[in-house]
């Protein structure tokens, strides 16, 4: 009883203290990360949960109330400065929210801690600017100045910068505790993904597949700021898979297979699932005969030591740039009456895949894009493209869908090399059992320019020089779509055509809504069953980042980063967007 009395007194004093002092966020632990769904007021992990669902259990904003959704407040950010090849920095980040504080990043790696606890305004508590060398990093970024967000660990915020550094920041003050150079722009390595924190490890990977890197995944001990392991995504000499690089000239050393979106994680088997990028050079597959593992693949890895448990390759000897870095949601479901543990993926190559995540075996695959011409379909047993030739070192696939040295101008590729679904994340509603796939629709063509060798392999190409083996050509306007797919069959249950290719990503909520940003500045909400638009707001400049949801004092909000780079790949073929200007803003909406 004495103990109880003491506990009561302690509680009383704690409550009194709480009333007088600002609420301090609790440490972010592994247990909280595993149970992220039990804290619907917070958005603690990049994809909402380790399973990669981007699903909020909040339902105050729902199909009935969404008509009253309006701007609660906005916050102007920075980071749209030019640098390297880019006119503007970009915003592709997913906000992290804990106890009313929103943590966002801009493309150059500045982290902003924004106090949103009043629900009336966002006050920037602190800003950490890593002082990124913009020319150096920006000149070897293939696709924009990007930073997809932070992670929380204990009382720290873990962030990255494009120039390859990883940072541990004091969550309360923004003071840097340590920084570690992980990727090296000297050899065209950059980092754009939000770190995945598992226990005390921060897992990141290197972008640079268009500049002759050899991709890797890397883990840092957050207690010490020291590297724990690095696993190359292209197996080295003597390792299984290296034999799929048949050139005999060690071209695997510059074979791409980059990593630039956050993995999903299954705590039950202690495995994370990392999407892997295209082989390099992108459009000269004759330079790299063989299947080129593990480019255009998913890898299942152990977080403690980085060991590869299994891999599955989507597009062997990829001649298209079908980069498969994007998220791989984990779903447990009955398939044909049998309980299965799935890892699913809306691939850039235009197919939806469901694999058995315990062993990487193929379960099902189905086209989800409107038009697909590079293969007639997938082998129902293996998931290999039907026109894959196991006896060929350089795959033909469908004639005209890609280019070659003999026919350097490809005719027509559908989906375009942009995808399908590019990096922009899908969302999964576990109540309706539907996966929402935002994608790019339409066709373009690719061209081959015979790739010259790197200097370390006797050629003229220096590190940091382009290593693409050709180019893309887009002359027809692309459009976008949102599709609701049953992950146990791949069937499309609802579809919606969008005016613009989607590069924002989706949020699903228990309010039976799906939120999506658009290149014309619209943020829209859709009925989760029909995908019919039920609400929209236009911010007047493009949205390239995924929305999230959180709550403070019992009130639900939707937050999204708005603005920055207006991609010439979108605006160049959409005259009505030509004069839109850039911005760098956080928008927060509430009822």
């Amino acid at each position: 009883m004495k103990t109880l009395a003491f506990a009561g007194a302690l509680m009383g004093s704690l409550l009194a203290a709480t009333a007088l002092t600002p609420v301090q966020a609790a440490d972010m632990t592994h247990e909280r990360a595993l149970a992220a769904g039990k804290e619907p007021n917070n958005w603690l992990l990049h994809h909402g949960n380790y399973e990669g669902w981007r699903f909020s259990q909040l339902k105050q904003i729902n199909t009935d109330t969404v008509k009253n959704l309006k701007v609660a407040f906005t916050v102007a950010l920075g980071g749209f400065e030019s640098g390297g090849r880019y006119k503007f920095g970009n915003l592709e980040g997913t906000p992290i929210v804990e106890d009313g504080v929103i943590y966002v990043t801009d493309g150059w790696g500045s982290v902003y801690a924004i106090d949103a606890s009043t629900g009336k305004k966002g006050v920037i508590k602190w800003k950490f600017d890593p002082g990124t060398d913009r020319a150096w990093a920006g000149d070897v970024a293939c696709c924009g100045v990007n930073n997809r967000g932070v992670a929380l660990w204990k009382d720290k915020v873990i962030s990255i910068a494009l120039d390859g550094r990883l940072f541990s920041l004091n969550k309360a003050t923004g003071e840097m505790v340590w920084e570690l150079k992980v990727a090296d722009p000297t050899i065209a390595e950059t980092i754009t993904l939000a770190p995945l924190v598992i226990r005390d490890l921060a897992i990141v990977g290197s972008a640079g597949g268009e500049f002759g890197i050899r991709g890797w995944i890397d883990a840092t001990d957050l207690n010490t700021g020291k590297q724990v392991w690095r696993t190359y995504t292209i197996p080295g000499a003597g390792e299984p898979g290296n034999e799929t690089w048949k050139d005999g000239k060690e071209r695997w050393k510059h074979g791409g297979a980059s990593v630039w979106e956050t993995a999903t994680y299954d705590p039950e088997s202690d495995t994370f699932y990392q999407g892997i990028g295209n082989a390099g050079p992108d459009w000269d597959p004759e330079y790299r005969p063989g299947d080129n593992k593990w480019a255009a693949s998913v890898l299942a890895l152990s977080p403690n030591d980085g060991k590869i448990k299994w891999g599955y390759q989507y597009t062997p000897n990829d001649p298209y740039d079908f980069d498969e870095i994007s998220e791989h949601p984990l779903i447990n479901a009955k398939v044909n009456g049998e309980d299965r543990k799935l890892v699913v993926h809306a691939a850039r190559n235009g197919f939806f895949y469901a694999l058995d995540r315990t062993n990487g075996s193929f379960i099902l695959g189905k086209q989800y894009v409107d038009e697909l011409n590079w293969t007639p379909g997938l082998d129902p047993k293996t998931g290999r493209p039907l026109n894959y030739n196991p006896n060929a070192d350089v795959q033909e696939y469908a004639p005209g869908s890609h280019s070659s040295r003999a026919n350097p101008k490809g005719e027509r590729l559908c989906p375009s090399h942009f995808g399908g679904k590019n990096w922009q994340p899908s969302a999964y509603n576990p109540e309706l059992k539907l996966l929402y796939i935002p994608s790019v629709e339409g066709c373009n063509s690719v061209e081959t320019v015979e790739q010259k060798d790197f200097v370390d392999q006797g050629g003229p190409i220096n590190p940091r020089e382009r290593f693409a083996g050709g180019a893309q050509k887009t002359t027809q306007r692309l459009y976008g779509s949102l599709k609701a797919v049953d992950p146990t069959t791949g069937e499309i249950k609802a579809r919606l055509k969008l005016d613009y290719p989607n590069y924002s990503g989706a949020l699903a909520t228990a309010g039976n809504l799906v939120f999506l940003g658009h290149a014309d500045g619209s943020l829209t909400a859709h009925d989760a069953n029909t995908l019919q638009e039920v609400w929209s707001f236009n911010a007047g400049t493009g949205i390239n980042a995924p929305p999230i949801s959180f709550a403070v004092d019992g009130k639900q909000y939707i937050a999204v980063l708005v603005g920055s780079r207006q991609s010439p790949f979108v605006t160049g073929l959409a005259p009505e967007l030509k004069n839109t200007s850039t911005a760098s803003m956080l928008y927060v909406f509430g009822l």
Partner: protein
Amino acid sequence: MTAARLAIGITALVALGWIFAAPAHAQTPSAEDLRAIDFGKEIYKVKANCQFCHKWDASGDTGYGGIALSLRNSALTREQFIEVVKCGRPFTGMPYHDRFSYTDKRCYGMTLDELGKDAPPMGEFLSAREIDAVVKYLFAKVVGHGPATYEDCVEFWGQNTRQCEPMKK
């Protein structure tokens, strides 16, 4: 101009682009020219973002920006450069930068409708003064200058970056 004449014109332009030009004879630029060259550099680097496809040193590139030619060994005249910047190059990824190109017959006698899918993409819109400046910059620093040097790199990017280190002898 008919489509056939346009095709001949474009072919000639392409052919010219591949012939190595003799280095331009340098003249001492006036203060006004120096301002224009600097203004033109910013347009090349940032506003029109020419470097995204052509690289900072205008030596040409491949990749997402398309197959962009080297401007360093171009044999086009200033007038031809101005025309290509204004009108872009039909059938290729080189964008047009005069807002009114192809709205009337000012570019190769063609409109956007007549060119259809062969029309060049729409680039950042530039004024005549800006186009003149970017061409002045190219002729002052790039066209006929041979491969870029470490000094060229520092001049382009400044001192506060590691960007030029690999070029240091």
